[in-house]
Every structure is written in structure tokens, then in C-alpha cells.
């Protein structure tokens, strides 16, 4: 591990597996994923659509939608195992210890309740405050997230706020009971490009001030480069590479990450639009044996076709690639077996 692991990590994810039982067999959507998040740290998570980012986040907050389920591994928060807690125990942790922000903040608010009511109910669910104390805290939070006229706005309904303002309310809601970790799943994807940077900056500033760690899922490499302390690159349900953001961006070790990073023409470009790497991520039912990336990899050897690499030290990062193993990728692959 690189950055800030002098004491216990806030969150430990160990060998996490998420699967979906279906009629045609069980789909393994998250396969053996491990990472830590230190207190106050921002971990960026990137990867193509379907890589398993949201499922990993949902597993952490204990809100996998059935039939999806955690099929193996452990998730620990402040040393306490949380992946096998009963619903009611986990509910008390959600909002209080782990907050969440979802893909579409515009629809995250209940249209029939004022933002004040939604803030106050969340605060009172987790903190022993009176109605007036909770309201004072709610106003305080609205001010903190930069909503002008918070005292008056608290009685307004979601439709009376613009997209960016609603997003600020959502951030206030995620933070209102003082969680130690926020799982933010593409928090700006649904927003106007012009306000995305503002919102990310706000999230980052608030989390720094409150000492809140963030797991920031995004397609936007620019956001990662600016915001994250470390970054995890996911591919086909596994972590392909993880390390300090500078190292991963500038000196990527995994061929997939190299492809991703090599193709950042400027900040604000999304990974799903990149065509640098030929081919597409395999579907869950078609993940090849060996390294999942091998059909698209130009460095692959015989070993990559049969043996699956786990994360291994690679320079200043850790990468799941045989290139960084003393044994190497194995014998070269003959031309005819390579798909054009």
C-alpha cells in the first residue's frame, strides 16, 4: 500500500465477490476485489461501463439489489465487519458512518417533501437531536454546501432547485449525520458540464474539512487526476491496477491503464468514449480464461491465456499483469492464433 497507511484503514475490502444467480447459471460480476481506504482519503474508481464499479459501491453500503449478493470476501469499516450484518444493524451504519451519493442526483430527492424535511429526518434518524436542533443543523449544512438564503430555502421543494443546487442538497444529505466515508457513484454524470467541476470541488473541500473519506466512482479521468489521492482501475469485475493517482496517471503499469491514460487528450474526457484500446470489455458470460484483458492486450504471452494474474507490486503501484511477475507473460503467441 502506498499513501497514508500509518494506522488502521477506514475501510478494508478483501476478496469481495458479488454474484447474480440467473437461469443460465451464476454471473460473477465482482471477482476477488480488494482495496483499502484510509481515513480522509479519496479513492478514485475508474473503468469501462459494466466493470463492476457500482456493484462494489453498493456492496459496501449494503444495498445490492437482489438477486445480486455478496458471495465471498469481507468488508470491514473501522475494523468491524459489515458485509454480514443484519439489515437493521446495517441501516444504522448507512447515513451515519457511510454516506452515499448516486448517479442521478436529480432524482435522488423525494419530490413531495421539502429539502428541510428530508434533511431533518435523516439527522434525527441518526443523531439524538430535537426538532429545532436538527433544523439548525440542516440550515448550517445548506449554508456549508453553498445554498444562498438557506433559512428560506430549507422549506422549498426539490423542484424549486436547479440541478446543481439539488446536487448540493444531496451532498448535504449524504454528510448530514457526519459519516466517515462517502460512496459517490458518478455524482456529476447527470449534471451540466459547466457545473460538474464546481460540484466535485465542493465535495472534495467538504470531505477534507470533515475528514470524510470518499470512494469516488467516475468515468472522468480529469476528475480523478484532480481529486483522488489514489485510484483503482477496474476491468471485468476485477481491479486491474491500484496506486497513488500520480503514478497511475503518469506511469501506468497495466497495459489497460496505459491505454486509458495514454488517451487522455485533456481533462474532462470520459473513459467510455475512448477508442484507444481496440475491442470491448467482455461480457460477464464471456470472460476468457487467464487474464481477462488478454483479447485486447498487445503484450500478452502464452501464460496470459491460461493463468489469471492477481495484483502484484509494479513500480509504485500494484497491477494484475504478468509483465510485472518474475515469471513474465510466458512464451510468445504465434501470429495465427492472434485475432485481427
Amino acid at each position: 500500500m502506498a499513501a497514508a497507511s500509518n494506522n488502521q484503514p477506514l475501510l478494508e475490502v478483501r476478496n469481495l465477490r458479488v454474484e447474480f444467480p440467473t437461469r443460465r447459471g451464476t454471473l460473477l460480476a465482482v471477482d476477488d476485489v480488494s482495496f483499502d481506504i484510509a481515513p480522509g482519503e479519496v479513492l478514485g474508481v475508474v473503468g469501462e461501463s459494466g466493470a463492476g464499479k457500482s456493484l462494489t459501491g453498493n456492496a459496501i453500503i449494503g444495498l445490492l439489489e437482489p438477486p445480486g449478493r455478496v458471495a465471498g470476501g469481507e468488508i470491514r469499516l473501522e475494523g468491524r465487519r459489515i458485509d454480514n450484518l443484519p439489515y437493521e444493524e446495517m441501516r444504522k451504519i448507512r447515513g451515519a458512518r457511510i454516506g452515499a451519493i448516486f448517479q442521478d442526483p436529480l432524482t435522488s430527492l423525494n419530490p413531495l417533501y421539502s429539502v428541510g424535511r428530508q434533511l431533518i429526518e435523516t439527522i434525527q434518524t441518526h443523531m439524538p437531536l430535537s426538532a429545532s436542533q436538527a433544523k439548525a443543523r440542516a440550515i448550517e449544512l445548506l449554508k456549508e454546501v453553498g445554498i444562498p438564503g438557506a433559512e428560506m430555502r430549507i422549506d422549498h421543494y426539490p423542484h424549486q432547485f436547479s440541478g446543481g443546487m439539488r446536487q448540493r442538497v444531496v451532498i448535504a444529505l449524504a454528510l448530514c449525520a457526519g459519516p466517515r466515508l462517502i460512496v459517490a457513484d458518478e455524482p456529476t454524470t447527470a449534471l451540466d458540464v459547466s457545473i460538474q467541476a464546481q460540484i466535485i470541488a465542493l465535495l472534495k473541500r467538504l470531505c477534507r474539512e470533515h475528514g470524510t473519506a470518499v470512494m469516488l466512482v467516475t468515468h472522468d479521468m480529469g476528475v480523478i487526476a484532480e481529486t483522488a489521492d489514489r485510484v483503482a482501475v477496474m476491468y471485468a469485475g476485477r481491479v486491474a491496477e491500484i496506486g497513488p493517482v500520480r503514478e497511475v496517471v503518469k506511469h501506468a503499469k497495466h497495459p489497460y491503464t496505459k491505454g486509458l491514460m495514454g488517451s487522455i487528450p485533456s481533462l474532462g474526457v470520459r473513459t467510455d468514449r475512448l477508442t484507444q484500446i481496440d475491442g470491448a470489455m467482455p461480457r460477464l458470460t464471456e470472460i476468457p480464461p487467464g487474464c481477462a484483458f488478454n483479447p485486447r492486450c498487445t503484450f500478452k504471452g502464452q501464460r496470459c491465456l491460461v493463468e489469471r494474474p492477481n495484483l502484484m507490486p509494479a513500480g509504485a503501484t500494484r497491477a494484475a499483469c504478468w509483465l510485472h511477475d518474475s515469471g513474465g507473460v510466458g512464451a510468445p503467441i504465434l501470429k495465427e492464433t492472434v485475432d485481427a
Partner: protein
Amino acid sequence: MLAFILRRLLQSIAVLLTVGLVSFSLFRYVGDPINSMVGQDTPASEREALRERLGLNDAAPIQFLRFIGNAAQGKFGLSYRTSEPVGRMILERLPATLELSFCAAVFALFVGVPMGVYTGLYPKHWSSRLMQAVSLIGISLPTFVIGILLILVFAVWLHWLPSFGRGETVMLFGWWPTNFLTIKGLQALILPSITLGLFQLTLLMRLVRSEMLEVMRTDYIKFARARGLTNRAINFGHALKNTLVPVITVTGLQLGALIAFAIVTETVFAWPGVGQLFIQSVQFSDIPVMAAYLMLIGLLFVLINLTVDLLYFVVDPRLRSQGGAARVAGH
């Protein structure tokens, strides 16, 4: 909001005038009113004099206006059958129908909505599946069959409940006979209310269920879970409230339907309400009563719809802010 209510009021008046036109046409042109009033051997000159006196020779629009004017004051002329004032006949029978419809609506709401919530929250539970299956029967069996079955079981076999009539009533304010103040009256209400309300109950249950299923999939419910709210707060606060708008709509429409459909139930249970009166007047071609009944049902539908529109404002803040739906997009 004020503009919206004004618009709705104007629409309501237009609807009432249309219904008025239909019942006026019925009254004026189906059969000859004079024939129904005088004897077979009345001379033509006398008939003509009566015709003149009643204004039946005036231009149709004038007659229509006079009809509407009278209707607004509750004057619908005399019944061909009993020669009583129609307004009074209807007023005497209205309490019976209103009490029956009210009980049926309460039954449908207070049983149907909780069942809908339950089946929506636990769609896979065996009891939910059972309720779904049973509700199909409720929806597809005709009202009179349900009524007759209930009579067979609870009145004929078990002798628990009366099979016809209102039982014992007590006069309220000197003119409203009520079932609610005597045991016998209440007992008499049970079977007809269930019969009348069963269809709306199943309808409501299925509606609430599908709305609930939909709402539970929304982002704001997922976010409410992520905020750690209790299941109680999520299910009965956030989710149920979001199903209310369609529930209010359907309840409103069904309340009108209840009063209208009371015709069948009142016939099966010999319930002395306006529905039964209507059936009798159809048998006797008692046109004034039929016309008045039509106007009454029209008026009730319009009143209920207005109430429903106002309830929308209470429930949904997006409608409350001035321009209504147009501003939902935000500013």
C-alpha cells in the same frame, strides 16, 4: 393555482349544462309530457291550454333555460307515477344511497389500500400472491352475483345478517334517516356495503400495489435507504405518499361510480335508495324522476372531481407553485 381552479369550475359548469341538456331532451322529447299528465279522454283544446300554461309551446332554448333554472332550485316537476314532487322523492331516498356508498368507500379504502401496500412491499410472499389471485375474482365477478352469494351465506345459511332493507333507522335533523345509530341499522349496512365496495377494493388494491412496486424502484427510495431511514419511514412516508396522487384520482372517480353502481346493489338488497327509485321510474317511464336522477349523478361526479383536483394541490407541491406542471422543470 386560482386560475386553475377557476378553469376547473368553468369546466364543471359546462359538464353540468351538457348533462342538463341530455336530461332536458329526455324530459321534453321522450313521450309527450301532456299525455302523461291528463286522462285519455281530455279534449284537444284543454290539452292545448295546458301545453300553453306549462310553456311547452315556447322556443326550445327558452324551455331549456327554464328547465335549468328549475333544476338549480331542485324543482323537477311531479312524478308521473306517484304525482309527488320529484325533488322531494329524491331527497327522501338520497340519505340511504349516500350512507351505503360512504360505507362501501370506507370499506374499499381501508381494506384495499393496506392490502395494496402489503402486496407491493412483499410481492413474492405467498399471502401477496393469494391476495392477487383472490382480487382477480373480485374484479371479474358481477356485483349482483357477489350480493346473492353473500345473502346466501350470511343471511340464508348462517342467519347472521339481514338480506334486505335498511333495518332500523333514526331520523337526524328531522329529515335524514340514518343507519348509523342502531345495531339493526348497522347490521343491515354490512352486506350491501361489501357487495358495493368489493370491486373498488380490488381495484384500489391492484392500483396501490403496482404504484408501490414502481415507487420502490425509484432513485429517491434508494437514496432514502442509503440515508439509513427506517423501513417504516421509507414505506409509509416516502413510498406511500408518492402513490397517493393516482390513488386519490381513482378513489374520486370510483366514489362517483359507487353512487351510480348502487343501482344494482340496491336492487339486490331492496335498499330504499335513489338507485332503486331510478329502476322503478324506468319501469314506469317516469321521465321526470329519471331526468332528475341523471342531473343528480352528474352533479355528484362534478363535485367529486373538483374535490380530487383540490386534493392534488394538497399532496403535490409541484402543482402548488403557481404555473403548475409547467414549472416542474425547475428554474
